């Protein structure tokens, strides 16, 4: 299947924590999470719009609405996994004895 998962690459590239750049890493993680959250928000919005238009009887076919919902679900799931990993890594960094 030629499905591609572009976001995984950027978010899981978590390097080994370094003592002096602990806080810089935190900012990096934050930015990545913000970005991912934005994308998830977009997918969710698209899904809601599609579902609304289906309910009001106009616009897209059923499978379009369903696909929009599935994309939103997958984006959300991916985001949650990424967030968990990121939080784990952050906690490890914070646990480091200075």
């Amino acid at each position, binding site marked *: 299947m030629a499905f591609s998962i572009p976001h995984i690459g950027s978010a899981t590239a978590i390097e080994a924590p370094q003592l002096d750049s602990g806080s810089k890493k935190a900012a990096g993680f934050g930015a990545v999470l913000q970005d991912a959250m934005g994308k998830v928000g977009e997918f969710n919005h698209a899904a809601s719009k599609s579902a609304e238009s289906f309910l009001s009887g106009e616009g897209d076919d059923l*499978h379009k609405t369903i696909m929009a919902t599935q994309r939103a679900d997958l984006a959300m799931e991916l985001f949650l996994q990424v967030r968990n990993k990121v939080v784990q890594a952050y906690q490890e960094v914070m646990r480091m004895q200075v």
Partner: protein
Amino acid sequence: MSLLSALSVSASGLSAQRSRAELLVENLANAETTRTPEGGPYRRKDAIFSSAPQGSPFSAEFQREMGAYSNGVEVSEIFEDAREPEKRFLPGHPDADPSGYVAFPRSNPAEDMVDLMAASRGYHANVSAMSAVKDMIQKSIDLMR
């Protein structure tokens, strides 16, 4: 909405073919009817089909985009045979006129039977269409599984 509207279209087909069949059956049953409440012999009836856009209760803007997609069918007219009835010479018949002729319907049972089979075939075709479309809609819903 798209596929769901196809169901209305097929339903209209079922309805039209059924009406057509009912009229044909009435013609066959009354092929020899010389006396009717309106007076005179039975007159053959024919269902006239014409295209009819199918509205949907769910959509206000339905007709806007859909146009040709939503063309179902309806019986726009029931055409009654207006020809002179067939006269047969039967002096003893209770409905005979003074000259001994009885007015019979101009019927063609063979043609009506063939038409009835065509109506049945059309009915079944609409049933198949409805079934196929219903399956497609179900497959779409299954994408969520």
